[in-house]
């Protein structure tokens, strides 16, 4: 007999078993009905009664409630039948096949159950694995702390992370000081051990896996909790002197103080360094709105801060100082006290400040100065959480000059004042992060990956940076500063030339017109695009209308905003991309199930098709606007033709309601390699395609763009080949709307591959147009072919050095 959540699954399993053993009698109790998943104890009772012919019943179950419901059903049948029923722990499919074969041979129920339980052996033997054996019981060991500063933030965080991962009830105590046992999973508790170098720490665990868990901790301790010894700290690697290629000071690089990070937003930034305000936010005196509301505020704020820290942390091993912050965010001691205070009637901000203050004070009483300093971690996290809770932006006080920071969130990048902020220098970060994209959009020069040392520079010191080359210097000698000023002057002269003819079409030296369009995320962007001479809007990110609100925007509201964008662009064509969100940016009014990996989940057009009401409204709004002004619509994250067919059908419905318009063009974004590879299959359904090189690069190279340890460069030959394939096979005009389009080095190459529209951040339009004008296809064509055959993006960049492609600059 089969108990399963799914009737379809149960029937299929029975069919499979029946093929092997036609004579076996198998009853099913599965699903609440044909389609609703679930298990029903009363249905199991019925099936048991039906299955029993006096010889008893062997029950195979899938998981979770199937087991619970089967056990409950056993309680509900009479004792006589109960004594003849065996609940068998075998895996459903393997067990059922083995059981059916055995039962058909006339064996009794116990033998059937035994054979079913052995049903997995064949697969185990085939795959050469053996089930893990775990003795259980207690395990204990003693380790000696070898870290120079004892078990301070980073090593302690490493211990806690491991302990949580091992999930074996690990506890530790400081044997040397005779401390009490504390859970190894709580950072604040582990820190209170006051474990210094040379102290002995007892580690214990219980339950299955205890021995392995303790051994694991012993191993981690032997590696000094994976702390890099200070003498090996790779300061030099982060910000060492630039060895070559520094023509700006006559080739002499020693003693100039010029170092190199990664260029993230082109331009020269010069100005006094400023840091974000670190004063604790003011907590207003407010009454509690009830336990649930206040606790929710805490949870939301903690989640927001965790996201912020995750962003910095990802791919930056040197950012492990933030591990401690991250662990504090779900520290049971801290949150438990916050919860108690909230239940005692405090509002969330007061409760959090109070609990964090109490725990920080505990650190302050410790003997070791290094550990005492860890109280700062608690304060830092608490301030960050409080800011999130109170909606205070970390950059409320925007400074003048060059912002120096660990990393820049998109929200922060969006609030920087481009007039006052002359540049951004980040210790960590990635040139492909959203923060970097925003910096480029706003025309703020930025260098990332400059190394943590820049964070300790004196406030007010003059910083010079070049966002194209990644070079920077703090308090540079005068000749260096002068060289950066010269570069800025040269750049601005070039920008001046470009701006002077920004409104003219971009035509290559051999007469091919390339439309240079703008990527927009707001009406203000549309004005900037018009001012910079964009030929059209090649990508309007409509998300800004949908995020951070409790209900979807109405059709009328959308129509009004799309109309404003078209008006701001003086009636030039606007390409509206339908909503592009996923599990990483959930909408409150279109809840999505939790996903292990939102970037490979229900996002883009998949999300829209899963929320047809929201999608239909957007399509209707677009169809309406298309009757007033030239509009293109494009669907993001397409991977199959079926998605486009469904979306077009819904669009047809919308057009039916709004009325037809001749100017509406339909396109898709090519961001998924699968779509690029079969671009010819989309031809019947589209008027154009637009390659989103950011996501296409990420998905092609399996490299997250924000991860500084990886290269997610759109000039990778694999990405270029996909673009070439799309140009050759799609049979419709091809645009590129990713960051690559704004890369002046890439412009000739993309044009040579066949791209006829480049959509870029508004401030980049004039220079991209200049780059098109400097392109000669008879030179760029062979170069593009060579690029496609090279080994990696670096080789392509070397090939594209200025002078190789352009007829002249």
């Amino acid at each position, binding site marked *: 007999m089969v108990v399963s959540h799914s009737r379809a699954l149960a029937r299929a399993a029975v069919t499979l078993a029946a093929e092997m053993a036609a004579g076996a009698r198998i009853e099913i109790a599965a699903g609440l009905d044909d389609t609703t998943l679930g298990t029903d104890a009363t249905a199991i009772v019925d099936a048991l009664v039906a299955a029993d012919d006096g010889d008893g019943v062997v029950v195979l179950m899938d998981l979770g409630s199937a087991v619970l419901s089967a056990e409950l059903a056993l309680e509900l049948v009479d004792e006589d039948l109960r004594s003849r029923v065996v609940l068998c722990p075998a895996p459903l499919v393997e067990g059922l096949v083995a059981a059916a074969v055995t039962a058909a041979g006339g064996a009794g129920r116990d033998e059937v159950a035994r054979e079913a339980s052995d049903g997995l052996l064949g697969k185990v033997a085939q795959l050469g694995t053996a089930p893990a054996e775990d003795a259980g019981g207690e395990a204990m060991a003693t380790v000696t702390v070898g870290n120079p500063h004892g078990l301070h933030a980073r090593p302690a965080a490493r211990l806690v992370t491991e302990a949580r991962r091992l999930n074996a009830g690990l506890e530790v105590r400081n044997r040397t000081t005779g401390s009490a046992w504390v859970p190894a999973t709580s950072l604040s508790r582990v820190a209170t051990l006051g474990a210094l170098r040379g102290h002995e720490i007892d580690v214990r665990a219980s339950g299955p896996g205890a021995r392995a868990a303790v051994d694991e901790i012993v191993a981690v301790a032997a590696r000094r909790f994976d702390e890099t010894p200070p003498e090996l700290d790779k300061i030099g690697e982060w910000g060492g002197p630039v060895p070559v290629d520094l023509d700006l000071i006559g080739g002499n690089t020693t003693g100039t103080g010029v170092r190199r990070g990664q260029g993230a937003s082109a331009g020269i930034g010069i100005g006094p360094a400023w840091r974000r305000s670190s004063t604790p936010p003011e907590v207003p005196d407010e009454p509690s709105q009830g336990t649930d509301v206040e606790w929710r505020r805490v949870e939301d704020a903690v989640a927001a801060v965790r996201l912020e820290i995750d962003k910095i942390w990802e791919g930056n091993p040197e950012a492990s100082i933030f591990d401690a912050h991250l662990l504090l965010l779900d520290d049971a001691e801290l949150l438990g006290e916050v*919860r108690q205070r909230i239940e005692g009637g405090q509002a969330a901000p007061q409760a959090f400040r109070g609990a964090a203050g109490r725990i920080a004070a505990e650190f302050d009483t410790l003997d070791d100065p290094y550990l005492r300093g860890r109280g700062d971690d608690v304060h830092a996290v608490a301030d960050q959480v409080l800011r999130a809770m109170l909606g205070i932006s970390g950059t409320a006080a925007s400074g003048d000059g060059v912002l120096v920071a660990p990393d820049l969130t998109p929200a922060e990048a969006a609030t920087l004042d481009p007039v006052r902020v002359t540049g951004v220098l980040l210790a960590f970060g990635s040139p492909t992060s959203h923060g970097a994209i925003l910096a480029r959009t706003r025309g703020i020069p930025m260098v990332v990956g400059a190394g943590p040392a820049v964070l300790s520079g004196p406030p007010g010191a003059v910083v010079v940076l070049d966002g194209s080359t990644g070079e920077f210097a703090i308090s540079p000698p005068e000749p260096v500063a002068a060289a950066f000023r010269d570069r800025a002057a040269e750049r601005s002269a070039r920008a001046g030339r470009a701006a002077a003819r920004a409104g003219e079409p971009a035509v290559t030296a051999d007469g091919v017109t390339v439309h240079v369009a703008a990527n927009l995320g707001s009406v203000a962007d549309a004005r900037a695009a018009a001012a910079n001479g964009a030929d059209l809007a090649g990508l309007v990110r409509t998300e800004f209308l949908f995020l951070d609100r409790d209900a979807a925007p109405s059709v009328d509201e959308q129509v009004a905003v799309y109309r404003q964008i078209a008006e701001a662009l003086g009636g030039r064509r606007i390409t509206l991309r339908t909503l592009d969100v996923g599990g990483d940016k959930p909408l409150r009014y279109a809840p999505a199930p939790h996903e292990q990996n939102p970037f490979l989940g229900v996002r883009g057009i998949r999300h829209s098709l899963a929320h047809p009401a929201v999608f239909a409204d957007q399509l209707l709004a677009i169809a309406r606007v298309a009757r007033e002004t030239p509009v293109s619509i494009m669907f993001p994250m397409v991977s199959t033709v079926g998605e486009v067919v469904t979306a077009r059908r819904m669009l047809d419905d919308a057009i039916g309601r709004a009325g037809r318009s001749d100017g509406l063009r339909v396109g898709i974004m090519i961001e998924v390699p699968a779509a690029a590879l079969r671009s010819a299959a989309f031809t019947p359904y589209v008027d154009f395609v637009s390659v989103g090189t950011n996501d296409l690069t990420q998905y092609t190279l399996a490299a997250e763009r924000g991860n500084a340890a990886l290269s997610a460069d759109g000039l990778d030959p694999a990405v270029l080949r996909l673009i070439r394939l799309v140009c050759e096979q799609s049979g419709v005009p091809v645009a590129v709307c990713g960051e690559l389009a704004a890369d002046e080095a890439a412009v000739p190459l993309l044009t040579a591959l066949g791209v006829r529209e480049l959509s870029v951040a508004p401030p980049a339009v004039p220079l991209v147009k200049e780059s098109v004008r400097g392109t000669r296809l008879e030179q760029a064509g062979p170069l593009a072919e060579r690029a496609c055959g090279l080994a990696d993006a670096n080789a392509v960049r070397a090939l594209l050095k200025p002078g190789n492609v352009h007829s002249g600059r």
Partner: protein
Amino acid sequence: MADTVDTEALHAWIREFARLIAEHKDLLTELDSAIGDADHGINLHRGMSAVVEVLEKESPGRPAELLKRTGMTLVSTVGGASGPLYGTAFLRMSAIAGDAETLDGADIAKILRAALDGVVARGKAQAGDKTMYDALAPAVESIEESIADGQPLGEALDNAVRAAEQGRAATVAMVARKGRASYLGERSAGHQDPGATSVTLLVAAAARALA
């Protein structure tokens, strides 16, 4: 109100629980979507709606009958693990209620203890596993103490609600060791357990309807 509870009062309890589940359906589902399969709110709502309908059709005579019908309806309509868990809880309560026409404070403590035992027998959960046990157990202990101290049922239930709420809050920091959430391991920490949340509503419903 009097310190005894009749079938009508128990019926009001069930209705109130159904109402609270309906009201918090989205919250429960949201909590479950963080660490489970996002069906807790939907499943319990389906089950409790069916219970309310069954009880409306034919009002039961004795408490035991009402509790039993509630349990049986839940086991066949909820679908997920909360079906057999809540079902067992109500069936065990029914068994303890026996032939009684009314239940006093001590009886209520007894049937809730039986419900807890049923949940443990069915789910094999222990304290700290991040399950409904972590809210229900403190509530049962609280009501037993209150009744033993001679407090009236209303006060005892109010105390029990607070105990359940504290237990529910404590599940946030726990790492799940039972059910679908246990597949997430340490990632389940930081989320409130949906089962602990719904069972707190059960206790809250009792406090409102039985006293």
